[in-house]
């Protein structure tokens, strides 16, 4: 264990240094959280417009008027990009990771506070650049969040592929730089700044998840950054990394010799680990919550740690499963397929252990716990469609259908969002010193849980029947047109679910001002953030350096005075 200097920076006084350009990981965490909050409502608004357009194509909509096919494609591109980068990557890691990783390992701050501040403001800049794409000539790009070349490389390939596409790439490149800085910080902090007694195997699973996620980020975002720069060069400097000889509308593009598949390889080398960047923190958090609220140690702590590592490691060997139909070698497809089925194994281990944690517990149904249980349910339903898509034979039919949309929305979108919700309800008291309203929390859970199923379950059926994604209208193809009633059902379910998110927003904002005052440890949990004041002081532990004696999940220890043993309590051995 490394000893380190006392907290490097004193508590700042001025408003600007305290709240805007703060070096405090807690303020930066909250900044990330609110950035993600703005982004998630923006992304959700875009999906609302898409859902309206799919069912009522002639409706006139706010900001966009009557949606043209190319506008629909811009909406889906921006929806995906905002959600993946500025919500699913930003909130769990940048937001909650920033706030709670240092506290949970007993550190006074991140290892590099200035870098931490820079990574937030870089990410923020990236978000502004992305939104700017809506306002330039031609509008936002229509090439989808995956930006497949040559569509994304040729300004002549469609509206939005001009300046809008450049801004899209620049935004992602800026985001990558912010994410790389963040990843370095997380890794260094975890390795170097743990308190005395906080061995790696005593870290809460949340910390393990943030740590492995940071390693994935470090390896993945560098590749995406490079790919983005190459794509910018193809677009603006006349290079041909991704564009072969060809024409658009009979006009020669002026490129030759490039490989469209190269973009896909580079993109998915980032893109698949990105799925785990989004979901691993949620896995760590829900493991934590299931243990806290079942009042039971996590089932198979070591197995959980190894499963996170295995997922992280295998996550880099499966990117080709996005490319089974791309023209990649069918032998590669088979190899990628085996690895992909392999990554299902640690995911199944985790599910098994979550159920094992509930088994013979004494479950308390607070809002964070409901979202954690909801997470398990959604993780299962989103997970079991994986082995369909992982088999090239079935992917022949399912690739690019709504079956894929259902799969990745459930597992990477909704399950991760449930992790974010659970984290918000769970840590809000520590962050803001007040409790969130439980009644509103439960109402929000039920509407969102049932709503998510109502939206995404039917998408499986739509995909099974051959319904294709990224179609602004299903009217032109007979077999897709016949599935219109499913789309209508999905849209109505989406409207209700979207509306119920305002319950969350109101609860959040109202509770910050008016919520019941929170105790230091309202959930009777064991990890270090609950040993300190609420909200924590500038250096997290008020000048005291915590010393850790116990594992993170010592609940219902026989013979202990309470049904939980804090990590800093005197070492306790169970008396049977």
């Amino acid at each position, binding site marked *: 264990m490394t000893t380190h200097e006392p907290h490097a920076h004193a508590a700042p006084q001025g408003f600007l240094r305290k709240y805007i350009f703060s070096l405090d990981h807690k303020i930066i965490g909250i900044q990330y959280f609110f950035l993600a909050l703005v982004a998630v409502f923006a992304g959700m608004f875009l999906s609302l417009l898409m859902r309206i357009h799919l069912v009522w194509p002639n409706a006139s909509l706010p900001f966009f008027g009557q949606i*043209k*096919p*190319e506008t629909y*494609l811009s909406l889906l591109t921006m929806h995906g990009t905002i959600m993946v980068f500025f919500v699913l990557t930003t909130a769990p890691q940048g937001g909650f990771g920033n706030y709670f990783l240092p506290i949970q390992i007993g550190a006074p701050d991140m290892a590099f506070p200035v870098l931490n501040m820079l990574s937030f403001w870089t990410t923020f800049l990236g978000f502004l650049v992305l939104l700017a794409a809506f306002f330039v000539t031609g509008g936002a790009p*229509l*090439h989808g969040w995956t930006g*497949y070349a040559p569509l994304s490389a*040729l300004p002549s*390939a469609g509206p939005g592929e001009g300046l809008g596409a450049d801004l899209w790439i620049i935004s992602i490149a800026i985001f990558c730089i912010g994410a790389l800085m963040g990843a370095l910080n997380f890794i260094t902090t975890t390795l170097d700044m743990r308190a005395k007694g906080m061995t790696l195997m005593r870290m809460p699973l949340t910390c393990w998840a943030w740590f492995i996620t940071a390693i994935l980020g470090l390896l993945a975002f560098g590749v995406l950054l490079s790919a983005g720069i190459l794509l910018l060069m193809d677009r603006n400097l006349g290079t041909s990394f991704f*564009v*072969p*000889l*060809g*024409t*658009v509308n*009979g006009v020669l593009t002026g490129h030759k010799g490039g490989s469209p598949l190269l973009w896909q390889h580079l993109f998915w080398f980032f893109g698949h680990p990105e799925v785990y960047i989004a979901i691993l923190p949620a896995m760590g958090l829900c493991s934590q919550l299931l243990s806290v609220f079942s*009042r*039971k*140690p*996590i089932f*198979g*702590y070591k197995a959980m740690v190894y499963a996170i590592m295995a997922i992280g490691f295998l996550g880099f060997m499966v990117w080709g499963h996005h490319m089974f139909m*791309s023209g990649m070698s*069918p*032998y590669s*497809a088979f190899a990628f397929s085996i690895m992909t089925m392999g990554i*299902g194994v640690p995911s199944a*281990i985790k599910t*098994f*252990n979550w*159920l094992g944690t*509930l*088994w*013979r*517990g*004494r479950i308390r149904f607070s809002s964070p716990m409901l979202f954690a249980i909801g997470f398990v*349910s959604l993780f*299962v339903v989103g997970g*079991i469609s994986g082995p369909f898509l992982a*088999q*090239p*034979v079935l992917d*022949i*039919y399912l690739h*690019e259908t709504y079956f894929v949309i259902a799969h990745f929305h459930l597992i990477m979108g909704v399950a991760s969002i449930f992790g974010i919700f659970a984290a918000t309800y769970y840590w809000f008291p520590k962050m803001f010193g007040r409790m969130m309203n439980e009644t509103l929390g439960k109402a929000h859970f039920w509407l969102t*849980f*049932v709503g998510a*199923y109502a939206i995404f379950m039917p998408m499986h*059926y739509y995909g*099974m*029947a*051959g319904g294709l994604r990224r179609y*602004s*209208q299903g009217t*032109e*193809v007979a077999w897709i047109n016949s599935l219109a009633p*499913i789309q209508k059902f999905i849209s109505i379910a989406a409207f209700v679910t979207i509306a119920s998110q305002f319950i969350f927003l109101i609860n959040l904002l109202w509770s910050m001002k008016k919520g019941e005052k929170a105790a230091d440890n309202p959930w009777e949990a064991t990890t270090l953030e609950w040993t300190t004041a609420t909200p924590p002081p500038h250096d997290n532990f008020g000048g005291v350096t915590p010393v850790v004696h116990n594992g993170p999940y010592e*609940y219902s220890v*026989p013979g202990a005075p309470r*049904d939980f043993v804090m990590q800093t309590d005197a070492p306790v051995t169970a008396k049977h």
Partner: protein
Amino acid sequence: MGLVLLVVIWLITLIGSYFIVAKTWWLPVGASAAAAGIDHHFTVTYILMGGVFIAAQLALGWFAWKYRDRGTGSQPAQYSHGNTTLEAVWTILTIILFIGLNLASKSIWASERFDAAKPGAVQVEVTGMQFAWYFRYAGPDGKFGATKPELEDASLGGAGALGLDSTDPASKDDVISGVMVVPVNREIEVILRSHDVIHSFFVPAMRFKQDTVPGLAIHMHFTPIQTGDFEIACAELCGLGHYKMHGIVKVVSEPEFNQWLAAREAEK
């Protein structure tokens, strides 16, 4: 609250599974030789994964209810850090299930994609461009004429759209069509190309899908076993007209096919 969770999770599981078992929305009837094998593997995967889905959801709902905190009279939670034997059993079972499932489908994938079309297959070149499909037949000489990007002009349609080089003798007898006409029960070798961006040639009834990539000529094959018209749709986002880039595979008897080809040849 535990009971509500149980009821809701079980109901969702029941309703979700019902539509799968009832096949309310399902794959269209297969019309190619490979369809039966693929569909069979689909069903096997559904049964196995559906079993996992139902078991996990039922257990989740059951545990949430059964192990709820019942207040002061409640049993304390069990102090246990897990069970290594159970963990190992579960891991091994999952490995067998997932990898076994995958290996079981290998032979279908191999016959679809490892093996090239057999000699004597009917060759059709499929070209995607924003936002149309063109189909080309080599004609009596069995050779496709050269095409050149600089000659492409979509407004001309047919040979002009494909950029067919009329100075190449092999191009003289090439037949170009907007509908893909093929004979039944013959292996069709498709040569997939694109002019501009990536498209994807998807014929659900044939259980066939393959991206068409500019710069590549991808050789694939399928064997229609049923006559009729089958819809084609583009399955890879290719721009604003993506949703209307569709077409028809018209599967006819072999004599009809030969007749059609000869008639098109005569028109030239």
